[in-house]
């Protein structure tokens, strides 16, 4: 670990001012001794770089899935003052509103006799992988509505139910979206990709509820032991990637214009209230809405397959919740005893609002916001809930996944896609992907153990465990 890093509590560490020149606030991250073994200096350096950005409040933060990314570290969280702070695509990433949702079914593990057939039908229903095209034919006007309406647009088009919207962060549509700031090129990429899963770490997984840690909370979420659920993980596809690329270029210019000195060009930023900052926020919110619509459309396809194959009513498959883990949002937080509006960047981190948060549906008000932590292929996923502790210490944020520990080059040398597939099959997990390379890249061993990551956030109190899910079948892009 880099010199100077101090342990503050069993799971909390501080990166002091001065670790890189120009830090305005200390860095702070959450990690166990076990996870500290794989902490990269590059990730800590990136955490410290974020602390140099103008208007950052309290700390540059990282969750226990911290790893080396670009711009912010993955697992990074930072809040900026609206008046004198900045907004940066480097704190959101190329895949704007990459996120995850979990859908319940009334089925139990024993009902899943034709698992291979189910996987095949889902694989055929949801366009997946590099070059996959949407079955939707969007007009220019419809895309525009999707960019402002998000999941709400999708539900109006018949892809889901009104109640789904209450179970999405921002009710599936972020305010402040400005389709005018989304270029023709971004739209060109977005049009044929709505309702496609994408590739890389994105997936669609059939899971079973294996362990319940908090019975009352699990009940509120509609979960029972042995229940079949479906997890969907994807983002804003090429549209969001293009928005990031183009606004990064604009903000590069803005960084110079406003005289901001940065240690990494990927942190290019502009004052939140500047024309460049506002344009990025508007385009980012529109991309986030595209992603919510996208996950809503995919969930509709999944419900249709389950409905037909198992003869279960569509409306009996309820959405537990949908979270974004690459996004910047305007939120109110209490800072030094004073309620203030701040811009919270979460890059590979999940919002984890505590009980009573205004954005929550009735059934979660006393519990806190559901938080979904996907595992890697073959490892457990978890449902947690947000806490008051998170509101105080992390601007209502927690981890987003397990976090990689092995590079893709090493992963490929270690095991072939075929070998990974066979070893998972031996555990009863079916993997379906367009090609085996996609499987080796994302094999379970390349990630930090997901149970250790959630143990840390649970122990640190920034979210609390509700249930654990095990994978039964995975579709990888």
């Amino acid at each position, binding site marked *: 670990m880099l010199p100077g890093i101090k342990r503050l509590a069993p799971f909390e560490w501080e990166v002091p001012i001065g670790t890189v020149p120009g830090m305005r606030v200390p860095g702070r991250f959450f990690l166990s001794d076990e996870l500290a073994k794989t902490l990269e200096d590059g990730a800590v350096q990136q955490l410290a770089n974020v602390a140099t950005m103008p208007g950052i409040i309290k700390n540059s933060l990282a969750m226990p899935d911290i790893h080396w990314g*670009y711009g912010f570290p993955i697992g990074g969280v930072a809040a900026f003052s609206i008046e004198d702070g900045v907004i940066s695509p480097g704190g959101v990433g190329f895949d704007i509103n990459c996120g995850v949702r979990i859908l319940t079914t009334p089925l139990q593990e024993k009902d899943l006799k034709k698992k291979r057939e189910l996987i095949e039908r889902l694989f055929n229903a949801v366009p997946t992988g590099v070059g996959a095209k949407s079955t939707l034919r969007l007009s220019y006007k419809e895309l525009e509505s999707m960019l402002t309406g998000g999941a709400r647009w999708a539900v109006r088009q018949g892809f889901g139910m009104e109640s789904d919207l209450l179970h999405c962060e921002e009710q599936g549509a972020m305010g402040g979206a400005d389709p005018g700031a989304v270029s023709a090129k971004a739209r060109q990429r977005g049009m044929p990709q709505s309702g496609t899963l994408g590739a*890389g770490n994105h997936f669609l997984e059939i899971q079973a509820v294996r362990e319940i840690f908090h019975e009352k909370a699990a009940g509120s979420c509609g979960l029972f032991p042995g229940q079949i659920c479906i997890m969907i993980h994807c983002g804003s596809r090429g549209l969001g990637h293009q928005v990031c690329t183009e606004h990064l270029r604009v903000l*590069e210019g803005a960084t110079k214009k406003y005289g901001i000195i940065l240690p*990494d060009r990927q942190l290019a930023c502009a004052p939140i209230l500047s024309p460049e900052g506002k344009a990025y926020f508007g385009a980012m919110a529109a991309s986030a809405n595209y992603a919510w619509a996208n996950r809503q459309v995919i969930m509709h396809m999944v419900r249709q397959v389950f409905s037909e194959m198992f003869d279960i009513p569509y409306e009996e498959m309820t959405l537990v919740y949908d979270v974004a883990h690459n996004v910047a949002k305007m939120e109110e937080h209490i800072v030094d005893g004073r309620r203030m509006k701040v811009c919270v960047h979460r890059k590979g981190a999940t919002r984890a609002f505590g009980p009573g948060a205004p954005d929550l549906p009735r059934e979660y008000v006393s519990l806190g916001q559901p938080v979904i932590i996907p595992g890697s292929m073959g490892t457990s996923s978890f449902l947690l809930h947000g806490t008051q502790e998170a509101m105080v210490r992390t601007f209502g944020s927690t981890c987003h996944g397990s976090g990689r520990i092995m590079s*893709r080059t090493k992963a490929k040398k270690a095991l072939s896609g075929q070998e990974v597939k066979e070893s998972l099959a031996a555990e009863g997990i079916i993997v379906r992907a367009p090609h085996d390379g996609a499987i080796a890249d994302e094999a379970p061993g390349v990630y930090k153990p997901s149970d250790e990551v959630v143990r840390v956030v649970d122990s640190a109190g920034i979210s609390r465990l509700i249930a654990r899910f095990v994978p039964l079948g995975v579709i990888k892009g």
Partner: protein
Amino acid sequence: MRLRKNLIALMSFEELEHTADIRIRVEAATLEELFSEAAQALMTIMYGSISPGNIRRHVEMDADDIISLIQEFLSEILFISEVEDLVFSGAEVRIAGNNLIADLTGEPFSKMKHLGGREVKGISYSDLSIGRERDSYILEVIFDV
């Protein structure tokens, strides 16, 4: 000749260690070749293998500096490839100052042929560098995947 060209394309870059994304190093004798090799590297990563084709595209761009120029050039190739379903295997590049003109050649994307790759989301500015080592130009770049 075809095979040789292909082999050269495959050997012209190496993947460096990076935990989450793909970090590559490209080496070439001239700046123009460096850009051309980088384009081929991007396509090889996205589509597994690339082979010559007779479809042509022309791109021109200006940037503030050479780092922005390579970032914008690769971002543009990524864009054209995705929206037009094209897999480029060659790029004839001319650079004057921070201005670039390139003629790209390639073939249509085929699901059967180009299934060995990984989706690249964007070209990162983090750790993006172009330097000189002896008689060569060296590029290091991270692709977000």
